[in-house]
């Protein structure tokens, strides 16, 4: 114990030294005096309460009180005060010798956007990296359940693809493409300064109907509480997050109490979701089926539509109540309560979320100290239908419904018709399957800002994030499937609990080095730990049919299979980091930023405990040069470079580990540790232009980037003889190369008193390539699992030299021969059909035929205000990519129809014979270009006049996913099913995907 304490003390000392060094920088101090005055509205002459008064080049400042008065300490005559207020044009005043400065502010012009960057914030016009910020007015409108949905399609370079249309489905988020082949490709999420754990926090194990897709871990954040979302795209911006910065960083800032009188805001939305008719497969109806199938034994005389049987109109509602304001003593508070209920368009699927948040800040000691904290308590109830990511031949509920013989009744004599394990009844699935997950999450943080001198500020930030999730899933023994009936019913309870704790110290120093050189430095220390544990209980063999009773009486089971009754606890995961950033602002023309972060992680092998991630960026504000044309309000050239990392491999991979066998009989070596294991490393270069011209009528930016990822994290098999496990390694020589161009522009086409028209567009063009794979994997890396009857062990994708990630590697279908048998191109010229199974490129009849990564993505938004009416529309689209329709491959063939399964009517017009047994080929690979009207909102703001109670009242109606223009035949061209092989990610394979709903909502928003 003693040695342990000494050890800790040693580290304590080191930490203190870092702090002291930083404090040392505070020696530049100036004489101080006080400036005061008041701020009024130029039109009404009324006092402006809560206007911001900031000393330029610092984060020091104050706000005006209830009479519009302020008082602020300035360092000297050079000080510049910046007065700003929401909706008004900011003003900068040089203090000079004045001691009283009264300001009259006028409204109507654009506010300068502020981008939250890691450990600080910066005006958009001063940003040196590729960063974007989006605020609520530009969020996707309508019914949105998580932060990622708010920005879907809105930002160039940010691709958000939800894994399905299921309520609460997790999304796949790619910033500037995928750069990893094994490690997680999702960006780092930072909520109010606390980086979130990217691991799944809810369970989804397979009890026989297939593995459930993961729940969205971000559901705990109420979209209504979000003030802004900043996206850091290039390495010069993300390097401050070091070993977690490779995939970009999304910083979510929540709302704080508004300055001024207390406000109560109530918003309510109700609506409904439906399956868009045009997106259904054209399944045969009963009479078509009877005629085309022709087998009287298979005509059972009924007329049912099994797919409609599992669908419904989902009711959705969302209610938010917030209360917030500020106190005279400099405190701000905000409380909110949100309730959301989303019924899915497939029966039995639903997500209810309950969020409560409290956010308080308080200034103390004449504003020298600010303390604040926030608390989010959320509770999410997910109810799921029997749907799965990778169900095989037998089928989940969706597959069962699609292929259900439409002449076969669901019920006969009061019982479900359940033909066999292979023809499962969708109606019985609805009755006999229960799957509910309850997730509670508490997220809290507490910070203290201390103004040590006017130039030096210290911040302590503490955060804790705790979640508990319990999934209860059961299937009745009355369900005809081997896994259910044959097991006497199954009940399973899975629990996962996780927590993250963060301690962070930062020092921020601001000064003018000379008249023309501004300087800002930030240094910090951060420690974050993550733990995660869980357990599973399963019982089989019940004597009754009611599966709900199984779950509530697990002891009633007659057997508890040992491999399904288990617990785990991940190794404690610690991340200790030292970071710093310096900014120089020279002549208000040249901006220079440099950052560095040293990340030490307990995950890394002992030989590579710390990784160092530097970055640098320069920007040239051309518009401030004398030669710059007047028309430019802003013109800035940015160049940035940086190295970032990705450490998303499981903790515990660097050490040998012995564990029990799954069934508990004895122990064996379970992990072959790799002490050299480290982060993967991405080097990114970015050049960009930010512009604003014609009185800010046009604003936008253009960026070009390249990024190369090396030391890719990958699981390789251990060379036998060895435990039959994967070993995590950093691949030598293999690289993933991304490059792209991003463009966005926003224009105010018409600006009049009664009529405003705003138009915005974002577009991205990408290339993506993996290189030198064959040096390590001569035959490439296989992924893209294909499922279905007769399709076991089929794969569709290959990662190979010079190809985009997840490239489809398939036989080329050339048509059916006279006998109706599928023919494939003889690519290797051997005269034989060697299309089966993936062999190395060049050896068999397979080739690279496309990839699921869009070349080009587009977002178009337009907003019109006419008097009290407003209308906004948002389109998004993606082009130049392919999707593989595994659903059609698995279900729609002549053989399936003859065998008694329903099919899409494409089968009727096909020359395919019953004897043809389709393999994955280009037959089912489709272009997935699409343009979607994602969002249309019409709103009306009620004229309240001099209303005693209400300050604003707005009614609105929103339609989401109103139409999608695409040639793709599946439910929806935006597809992201988890079809990985050995955890090598896959993308662009559509199999039994939960369809995307069309949603209409009606809402009211009232501020009191």
């Amino acid at each position, binding site marked *: 114990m003693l040695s342990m304490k000494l050890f800790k003390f040693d580290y304590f000392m080191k930490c203190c030294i870092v702090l002291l060094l930083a404090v040392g920088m505070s020696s530049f101090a100036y004489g101080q005096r006080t400036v005061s005055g008041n701020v009024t509205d130029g039109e009404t002459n009324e006092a402006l309460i809560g206007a911001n008064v900031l000393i330029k080049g610092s984060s020091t400042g104050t706000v005006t009180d209830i009479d519009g008065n302020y008082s602020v300490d300035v360092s000297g005559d050079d000080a510049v005060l910046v007065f700003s207020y929401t909706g008004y044009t900011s003003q900068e005043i040089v203090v000079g010798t004045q001691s009283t400065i009264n300001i009259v502010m006028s409204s109507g012009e654009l506010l300068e956007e502020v981008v939250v960057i890691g450990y600080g914030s910066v005006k958009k016009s001063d940003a040196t990296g590729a960063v974007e910020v989006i605020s609520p007015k530009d969020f996707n409108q309508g019914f949105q359940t998580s932060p990622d949905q708010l920005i879907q399609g809105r930002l160039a370079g940010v691709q958000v693809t939800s894994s399905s249309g299921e309520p609460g489905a997790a999304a796949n988020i790619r910033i500037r493409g995928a750069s990893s082949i094994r490690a997680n490709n999702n960006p780092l999420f930072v909520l109010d300064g606390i980086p979130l754990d990217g691991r799944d926090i809810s369970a989804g194990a397979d009890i026989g109907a297939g593995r459930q897709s993961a729940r969205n871990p971000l559901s705990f954040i109420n979209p209504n509480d979000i003030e802004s979302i900043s996206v850091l795209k290039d390495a010069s911006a993300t390097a401050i997050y070091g070993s977690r910065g490779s995939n970009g960083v999304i910083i979510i800032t929540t709302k704080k109490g508004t300055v001024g009188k207390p406000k109560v805001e109530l918003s309510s939305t109700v609506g409904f979701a439906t399956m868009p008719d045009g997106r259904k497969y054209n399944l045969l109806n009963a009479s078509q089926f009877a005629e085309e199938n022709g087998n009287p034994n298979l005509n059972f005389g009924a007329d049912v539509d099994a797919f409609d049987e599992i669908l419904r109109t989902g009711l959705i509602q969302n209610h938010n109540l917030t209360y917030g304001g500020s106190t005279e003593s400099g405190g701000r508070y905000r409380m909110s309560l949100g309730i959301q209920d989303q019924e899915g368009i497939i029966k039995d699927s639903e997500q209810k979320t309950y969020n409560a948040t409290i956010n308080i800040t308080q200034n103390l000691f004449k504003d020298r100290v600010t303390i604040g904290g926030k608390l989010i308590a959320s509770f999410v109830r997910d109810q799921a239908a029997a749907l799965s990511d990778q169900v095989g031949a037998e089928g989940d509920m969706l597959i069962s419904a699609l292929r259900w013989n439409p002449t076969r009744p669901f019920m006969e004599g009061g019982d479900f018709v359940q033909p066999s394990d*292979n023809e499962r009844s969708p109606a019985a699935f609805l009755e006999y399957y229960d799957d509910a997950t309850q997730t509670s999450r508490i997220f809290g943080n507490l910070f203290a800002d201390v103004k040590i001198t006017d130039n030096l500020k210290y911040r302590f930030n503490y955060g804790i994030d705790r979640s508990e999730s319990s999934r209860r899933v059961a299937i009745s023994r009355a369900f005809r499937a081997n896994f259910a009936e044959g097991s006497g019913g*199954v009940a399973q309870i899975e629990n996962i609990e996780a927590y993250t704790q963060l301690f962070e110290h930062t020092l921020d120093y601001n000064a003018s080095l000379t008249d023309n050189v501004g300087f800002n430095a930030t240094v910090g220390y951060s420690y974050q730990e993550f733990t995660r544990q869980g357990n599973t209980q399963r019982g089989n063999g019940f004597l009754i049919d009611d599966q709900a009773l199984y779950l509530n009486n697990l002891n009633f089971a007659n057997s508890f299979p040992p491999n399904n009754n288990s617990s785990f606890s991940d*190794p404690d995961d610690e991340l200790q980091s030292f970071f710093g950033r310096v900014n120089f602002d020279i002549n208000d023309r040249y901006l220079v930023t440099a950052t560095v972060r040293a990340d030490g992680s*307990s995950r890394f092998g002992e030989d590579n405990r710390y990784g160092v991630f530097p970055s640098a960026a320069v920007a040239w504000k051309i518009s401030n040069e004398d030669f710059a044309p007047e028309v430019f309000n802003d013109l800035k050239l940015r160049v940035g470079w940086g190295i970032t990392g990705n450490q998303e491999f499981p903790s515990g991979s660097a050490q040998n580990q012995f564990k029990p*066998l799954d069934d508990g009989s004895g122990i*064996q*070596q379970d992990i072959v540790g790799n002490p050299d294991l480290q982060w993967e490393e991405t080097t990114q270069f970015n050049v960009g232009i930010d512009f604003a011209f014609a009185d800010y009528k046009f604003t936008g930016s253009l960026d070009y980037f390249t990024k190369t990822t090396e030391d890719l994290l990958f699981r390789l098999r251990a060379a*036998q003889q060895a435990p039959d496990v994967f070993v995590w390694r950093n691949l030598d020589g293999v690289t993933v190369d991304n490059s792209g161009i991003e463009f966005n522009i926003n224009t105010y086409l018409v600006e009049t008193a009664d009529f405003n028209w705003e138009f915005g567009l974002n577009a991205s063009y990408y290339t993506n390539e993996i290189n030198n794979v064959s040096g390590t994997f001569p035959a490439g890396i296989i992924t893209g699992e294909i499922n279905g009857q007769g399709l076991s062990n089929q794969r569709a994708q290959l990662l190979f030299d010079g190809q985009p990630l997840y490239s489809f590697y398939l036989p080329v279908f050339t048509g059916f021969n006279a006998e109706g048998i599928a023919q494939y191109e003889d690519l290797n010229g051997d005269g034989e059909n060697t299309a089966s199974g993936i062999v190395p490129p060049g050896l068999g009849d397979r080739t690279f035929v496309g990839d699921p990564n869009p070349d080009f993505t587009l977002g178009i938004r337009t907003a019109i205000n006419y008097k009290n009416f407003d209308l906004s529309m948002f389109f998004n689209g993606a082009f130049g990519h392919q999707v593989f329709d595994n659903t059609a491959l698995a279900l729609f063939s002549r053989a399936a129809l003859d065998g008694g399964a329903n099919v899409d009517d494409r089968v009727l017009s096909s020359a395919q014979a019953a004897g043809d047994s389709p393999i994955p080929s280009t037959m089912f690979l489709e272009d997935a270009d699409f343009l979607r009207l994602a969002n249309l909102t019409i709103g009306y703001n009620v004229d309240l006049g001099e209303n005693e109670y209400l300050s604003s009242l707005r009614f609105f109606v929103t339609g989401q996913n109103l139409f999608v223009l695409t040639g793709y035949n599946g439910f929806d061209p935006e597809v992201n099913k988890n079809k990985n092989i050995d955890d090598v990610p896959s993308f662009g394979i559509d199999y039994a995907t939960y369809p995307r709903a069309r949603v209409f909502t009606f809402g009211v928003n009232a501020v009191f």
Partner: protein
Amino acid sequence: MKKISISFILLCLIAGFFQSCTDLEEQLNDGVPTLDANADVAQLLAGAYGNLRDLQSQEHIIFVANHTTDEMAGPTRGRDWDDAGIWRVLHRHSWTPSHQFIEEGWRTLNRNGFNAQQVLCNGATGQVAAEATFLRVFADYMTLDLFGKVPRRACNENLLNPPSQLLTRENGVELFISELEAVFNDLPTSSTSAATATQDAARVLLAKLYLNRAVHAATGADGAPQAGPYTFDAADMNKVVELCDEIIGSGSYALDDNYFDNFIPENTSESSELIFVSENSSGGASGNVRSRWFCSTHYNQNPSGWNGFVALSDLYDKFEETDVRRGQDLDYIGDNGSGLRAGFLIGQQFASDGTPLEDRQGGPLNFTSDFNLFQTGDQLEVTGIRCVKYPPDFTTPGDNSDNDFIFFRYADILLMKAEAILRGGSSPDRPEDLVNSIRTIRGASTFGSVDLQTVLDERSRELYWECWRRNDQIRFNTYLGTWQEKPNPSDPSRLLFPIPAEAIATNPNLPQNPGY
């Protein structure tokens, strides 16, 4: 109020510093980085036994190898069981080094060998070490038999590097024999359960090694396996006879009056023939023995199967009508509401109440002896004879069936002895008596005399679908021939499976078998 705030802030700061400084040593929670040799070596041994359960799956190489013989095939039915030909290539001997089951089989068997050695490397002595040695040789011998090479490691090798040793067909059998003999006396003479490696289990393994020694010896300079006929050394055959006699003479085993008692869920207690098994416990630790019935029965049978593998008519036609091994009604199956029979299923199938069953198209569920490896047309679901070697466990819910999975049993010993005598081993016993002792109890007629072909056929009749057929056909030099739905003879390179592509990628010192 302010005082509280100050102390609060100070507290935060101090707590922050003390909490936050770490040396980043990773704390494991559900695993341990090293073992306590004295405490854990028995658990490691239990783990090595547990690994045997992974050999029970229908996708494991020892069962997959049945598809390559004249006993079994996995036909494609329309699109069902197409799987891009993964089963068909087995029957036609056209597999490649990237065949998934071949890759998985290589890994599982080598993992088993490694895990057994882990027991030895962690300080095991005496009986524990002896049992671990048996398990190691058992796994490594299967690897050698199937792949012709075994990449072994010394204790405490860095597992990130390729292994330092390579056993081949030239030196493997010698080494295995010496390793087994060295620990023989430390093995238990008897055990309450056939799941423990006893001296008798070691005798069977030794007998298999001696019996097949000539096959492994027939290896070209490039490591290529050579086709038979093989030249068997009389001394080896004498060893086989001697080992078999020790087992027979022990009186511990006898042929069971009820053939299917060897395979029913209660075979642990009911069978008198079990010598070495992988133990399955009802509802508990259990392998995938359930695949033995699911893999063959039709969807509309009880239990609802996968309508997969068929028994070749070459096999079915070897039986006399009275032979109980060909098929039998078992009372307990009917008691569980199933009309299933044990053994082969041919012709119309019935429910337990005598109702004729239908296939999914509504036609009669009438299994035919003819089938096409690529089945189409009206008979899609019903072609091919089905086989239920292990009768289903109806009482155990879930996948955890009770039937112990057999590696060695007594009837095999009698047949090995008969074969060894015919191959030149000396014994006062007549091989026909050994064969007839089995045939009599199985309800078949007796033979006046037997030759090697008779013994091979009897091995098939007795041990069909028990994963010995490939080994037998190779030794009797019929493996490269033709049979139902295998029209062409195959190249001698097919006597070994290829070293999987993945294994060669991770171990550059591992040469591919010639011909792949």
